[in-house]
């Protein structure tokens, strides 16, 4: 079975054994199907990150307050004194 613990860590997931087994099988299958790409010669071809002919819309440097702190914190699972709160990172 394909070892997927490393990808789990990168994706911040912690699967149970059944799910891990199921997904590892799919990932293995997908990975195999990707070998089809190897046959294409892409030397000299530049990567296409996104569809071209588009331009960035640059913004003028003007500050404006869109939202109050209360609105921003409204969706927070835990907050304290105007901050978002998480378990200690230094512990």
């Amino acid at each position, binding site marked *: 079975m394909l070892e997927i613990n490393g990808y789990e860590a990168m994706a911040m997931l912690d699967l149970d054994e059944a799910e891990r087994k199921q997904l590892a099988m799919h990932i293995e299958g*997908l990975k195999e199907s990707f070998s089809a790409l190897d046959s294409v010669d892409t030397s000299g071809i530049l*990567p*296409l990150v996104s569809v071209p002919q*588009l*331009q*960035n*819309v640059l913004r003028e440097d003007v500050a404006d307050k869109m939202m109050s702190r209360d609105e921003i914190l409204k*969706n927070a699972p835990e907050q304290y004194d105007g901050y*978002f709160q998480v378990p200690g990172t230094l512990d």
Partner: protein
Amino acid sequence: MDYFVTKYDTNHSGGADCAVLEDSIMKKGSPVTAGSRMLADFISPIDATAVTKLESAGVTILGKMRMDEFGVGGLFPSLETSSCSGAAAAVADGVAAFALCNDYTGAVSLEAAALGLYYIQPTYGTVSRYGLVPAVASMDQIGIICKSLVEGFRALSIISGFDDKDGVMQAEQRLDNDNAQPMEHPEHKLRIALPKNVFSDNFDSISSHLLERLGDVEIVDIELKYSELYAPVMQILCCAEFSNNISRYDGIKFGYRTKEYTSLQELYTKSRTEAFGLEVKLAALMGALVLSQENYTRLYDKAMRIRRLMRDALQFDQCDIIAAPFPCLSRLCGLPAVTMPCGGNALTLMVAPGREDVLNTVLKDRKHI
């Protein structure tokens, strides 16, 4: 089937001049879940530009429709999870004249066609993504599910156009699809490419249906190169971008947070593992895989290069429309497209970027095939 996740006006009977939204499009102050447990309690902080435009055009928005979690399921046919677009079902039942939806995989388009509906995919970058829950940035694009293309293209005229709140947009002004004029072809008839290599044995039936529907057109025979790689390239690019986009869901600022945790690490992993469904997990893991140092060059970088080859292989100098049995090529290349039912199959007609007018004039006011 209850297609609604959120209903704005329970007394409204719906119908003409009414629209529904896939639950990835935001209406300020109301929930937006994108079909995920992760966002079960998330309240939209903003109005999507498309929503603002519809409302100021007098369109009534009835509510938000059920969707696959972040719309990602369409990428993995092997998982055999049944896709269920509430938006398509609602339009099929006549609840609303049209629905807005971000069908970056093409799965909703196929579902809509199976229900006898059209899916209009606008040119990439012509409808603002402000207020759309992002999934795959290079393909995210709000499109329209409709029963009538007249209604559909009218809606497209309303929602498309430049928006300085979206950092990347087409420079052109709003597409005036409402007043598209019939095309004139002094030199040649409308040329439709039906690439034999992408149709299976239903080629003859589809071409005869298409000819019947469109009348005096010329069928062009071109080959769609690299078509066998559409699926893997889509999967690689989509998983990479998707996995990155959903890393914002960590249980810290908003969204689902696991009930019990003793460390930051546990807060992260438990929140994400408990809230995400199988398809999302698969996409997240695949994204990590294709972007990892080990695989970046062979998979992600390679897929981007092949994407360029695919785009460059489009032969719009030899045809006006390319027809294909799947919509994914339009997503990979940012092409405007209409996916529709055609003799019991789904058919996607694609045109060059910005040429929605070709589809509009050819297909408008005509009956289903």
